[in-house]
């Protein structure tokens, strides 16, 4: 039954050779069973011998079928090895028919009865072994080699499913070959007293092959179900995307198409469509081009993409994008074109507006292709660069930049086309453009990739930032100027302590000099005193110079620097300047500097100014306080958010509720003679350092001003 079934499968699909092979194997099994049954139940040695002879023939057929199955089913076997294995097997059959009773037996003298599986059967009684049996055993060995080799190859190269196949079919076949040749060999040699039962392992092999083939049948059924499902989904997706799908039969000159396509082109639902009818719908101006594209595709049996217009009622135009693939038969004759079409009218209208938008843009716009050639410029670009557009189109974009950037830019351009994305150009770099008259000007450029029929283009939007840089520079300058004014006025407030600090060493110097005068006039002059005096004078002179240097540093006009600095050293500098004033005003000072703080970046002088301002404010706030409450506390620490924090606390009159932000406004002051600029400038300075400054009221009265500054980024050591 099985044999017939798979024979039927093969007859319907001639290419499924494994089905034929399986049928042959089953034929072998059935034949083998029949002849083994005959030999088991005969009384005559002649009949036994005859049956044995035919057994070898069907065995050879069955083996050939199984080996062929392996060949077609695995697809990995060696063809020559297959030939050798089958050839040897049939050579053994020839020997079987030409020598002795059969391949195994030369003469059978008698049979005897024995019990096998509970049944009385005939087995060999007295016989002579045929030497040609060795040929049969050798043939089995080659078969085994072939099967194992093919299985191993499949195992190595195949999928998980193939591996399973290699084990089930290859393994069973190998076991069968060993069992069959072993059992028959041992029986013929007289070691085993039992009938030849090669058919039993052979049957097992047939079952294994059947199992594999049935799985294939089931799998293909499932595949076909899935295919139907995916076709349905495809139709749904095409409908949703408003894609029209069509097939043009070149032989019958018919076009089959989905309803969407008919809708796009303006055909009725059931209308018969041929190519001429289709062309009539196309805009007369596009017909020729479309025809040419299609003919070329059919001629080359290739793929095409095109766009064309169709005229729909009320003389409106619809843009269609279409792509198709020509399919031909085995002889290379084009049979049909299969493809999809979609409505791109909206896209086309946008494209038509594009040049208008570009032209009207207040920025300079330059469109560049992947070769770096300028494709399009707008009026603003002409104005910016001083070139007419006819001078720019087709030129390399690098002509618009100063010489020194050109080579590097070519590399950047290639990199951009490899990974196009909308972004500003040269982030963090200062960009310059070159005008026709050779003048450079600073610019900012935004880049956007644009996909077009001509490939990817890059749209560069260019802004001249000369004016902006100028005003930024002026703001910066004014800020520095204002900060300087504030510093000078702050230093004015410190005049008393500054005088004290300077007069101290100057007084010492004068006294020393006059003492030296007196010592010199003594007889004998006190030379050791003079030496001490000179050393002291030098030291005091350095001290005075140091005071002056610090004052000058603070009073110097200067633009902001941006260098790594330690906040604690800023505090120490300021304390040196202000300590005299603190003593003079009978304030006490608490300093708590966290050791080992990371550095921040910024301008030492400006930060000193901020701190100086906070300390003086704190002292001013405590003027009316009793002496034990005139205490100012300066603290540094590393905040939880990795910001360096500097705080100045006082025990003064504190901050009025709701005024803590107004403090930082210009001209806001609580002092009778205050200008109201100090904190406003302090905030400007701190913000320029990417930090924050704010005020808080203390629970014990008074106010705390806090400044936070970011930690300097780690700089790799060179």
């Amino acid at each position, binding site marked *: 039954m099985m044999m017939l079934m798979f024979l039927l499968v093969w007859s319907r699909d001639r290419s499924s050779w494994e089905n034929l092979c399986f049928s042959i194997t089953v034929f072998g099994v059935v034949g083998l069973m029949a002849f083994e049954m005959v030999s088991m139940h005969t009384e005559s040695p002649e009949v036994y011998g005859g049956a044995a002879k035919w057994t070898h023939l069907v065995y050879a057929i069955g083996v050939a079928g199984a080996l062929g199955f392996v060949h077609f089913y695995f697809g990995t076997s060696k063809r020559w090895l297959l030939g050798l294995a089958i050839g040897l097997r049939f050579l053994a059959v020839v020997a079987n028919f030409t020598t002795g009773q059969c391949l195994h037996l030369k003469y059978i003298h008698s049979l005897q009865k024995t019990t096998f599986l509970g049944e009385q059967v005939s087995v060999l009684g007295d016989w002579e072994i045929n030497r040609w049996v060795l040929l049969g055993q050798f043939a089995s060995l080659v078969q085994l080699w072939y099967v194992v080799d093919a299985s191993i190859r499949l195992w190595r190269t195949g999928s998980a499913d193939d591996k399973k196949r290699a084990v089930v079919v290859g393994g069973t076949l190998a076991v069968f070959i060993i069992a069959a040749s072993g059992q028959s060999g041992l029986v013929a040699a007289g070691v085993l007293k039992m009938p030849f039962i090669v058919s039993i392992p052979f049957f097992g092999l047939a079952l294994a092959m059947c199992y594999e083939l049935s799985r294939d049948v089931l799998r293909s059924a499932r595949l076909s179900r899935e295919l139907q499902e995916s076709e349905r989904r495809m139709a749904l997706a095409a409908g949703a995307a408003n894609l029209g799908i069509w097939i043009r039969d070149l032989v019958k000159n018919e076009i089959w198409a989905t309803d969407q396509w008919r809708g796009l082109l303006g055909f009725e639902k059931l209308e018969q469509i041929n190519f001429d009818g289709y062309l009539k719908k196309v805009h007369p101006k596009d017909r020729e081009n479309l025809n040419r594209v299609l003919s070329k595709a059919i001629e080359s049996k290739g793929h095409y993409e095109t766009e064309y217009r169709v005229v729909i009622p009320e003389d409106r135009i619809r843009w269609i994008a279409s792509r198709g693939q020509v399919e031909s038969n085995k002889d290379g004759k084009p049979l049909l074109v299969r493809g999809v079409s979609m409505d791109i009218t909206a896209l086309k209208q946008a494209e038509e507006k594009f040049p208008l938008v570009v032209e009207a843009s207040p920025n300079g716009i330059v469109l560049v292709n992947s070769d770096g050639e300028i494709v399009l410029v707008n009026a603003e670009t002409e104005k910016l660069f001083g070139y007419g557009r006819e001078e720019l189109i087709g030129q390399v974009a690098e002509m618009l930049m100063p010489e020194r950037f050109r080579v590097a830019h070519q590399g950047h351009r290639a990199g951009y086309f490899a990974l196009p994305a909308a972004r500003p150009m040269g982030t963090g770099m200062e960009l310059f453009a070159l005008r026709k008259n050779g003048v450079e000007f600073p610019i900012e450029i935004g880049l956007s990739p644009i996909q077009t029929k001509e490939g990817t283009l890059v749209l560069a939007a260019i802004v001249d930032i000369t004016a902006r840089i100028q005003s930024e520079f002026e703001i910066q300058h004014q800020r520095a100027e204002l900060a300087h004014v504030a510093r000078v006025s702050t230093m004015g407030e410190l*005049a*008393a*302590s500054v*005088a*004290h*600090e*300077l*007069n*101290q*060493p*100057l*007084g*010492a*110097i*004068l*006294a*020393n000099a*006059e*003492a030296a005068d*007196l*010592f010199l006039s*003594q007889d004998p002059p*006190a030379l050791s*005193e003079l030496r*001490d*005096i000179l050393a*002291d004078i030098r*030291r*005091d002179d350095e*001290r005075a110079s140091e005071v002056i240097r610090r004052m000058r540093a603070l009073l110097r006009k200067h633009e902001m620097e941006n260098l790594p600095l330690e906040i604690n050293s800023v505090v120490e500098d300021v304390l040196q300047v202000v300590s*005299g004033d603190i*003593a*003079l005003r*009978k304030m006490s000072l608490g300093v708590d500097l966290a050791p080992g703080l990371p550095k921040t970046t910024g301008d030492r002088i400006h930060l000193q100014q901020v701190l100086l301002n906070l300390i003086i404010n704190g002292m001013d706030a405590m003027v009316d306080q009793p002496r034990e409450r005139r205490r100012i506390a300066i603290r540094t620490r590393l905040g939880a958010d990795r910001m360096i924090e500097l705080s100045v606390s006082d025990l003064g009159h504190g901050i009025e509720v709701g005024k803590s932000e107004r403090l930082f406004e210009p001209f806001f002051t609580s002092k009778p003679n205050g200008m109201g600029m100090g904190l406003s400038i302090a905030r400007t300075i701190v913000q320029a350092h990417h930090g924050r400054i704010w005020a808080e009221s203390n629970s014990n009265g008074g106010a705390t001003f806090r400044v936070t500054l970011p930690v300097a980024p780690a700089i790799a050591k060179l």
Partner: protein
Amino acid sequence: MNSANPTVHIVDDDASFRNAVSRLLRAAGHQVQCYPSSAEFLAAKPGAVPGCVLLDLHMPGTSGLEVQEAFAQTENPLPIIFLTGHGDIPTSVRAMREGAEDFLTKPVKKDALFPAIERALARDARERIERALRREVSARYETLTAREREVMALVVAGNLNKQIASDLGTVERTVKAHRAQVMEKMQVTSVADLVRASDILSR
């Protein structure tokens, strides 16, 4: 060190300045004593021997004016010359009103410093004599009875015995006896000397 020699006390928190001025004064032949703070100066009871003080106006802790105030309460306050790096008028006026000998700004020249010191030392010597005299006269005055003090006051005021007797409601003979007692206890021989002693007491 001869304790009878006047000593110049220098009080300044700035060691460098202290040493330099000390050196200058020593070169000029003065005894010098230095103090880094007003507290140490006051603790040393410097008034025991003659001298004067060079006091820095601005010091951490007790300021110069406060030292002056505290020092004035002692038995033998020495004349004070203030030194300051930066003098302002209100402070100097206050210092002078409180009896400072001088108010000098740093840097100070010896031509200004030395005369000031000489003046201060001379004043100290003078004040010491006056203080000694006053102490002696007051000690004598302490021995007078209440009636004798009344009589002395009226004599010094220039009253005749008769007027005094009438004022006190007694007889002239009794007044005469009191008057002799007063002259003896006060160790004076003339009314003019008694007037001078009364003058010393009233200072």
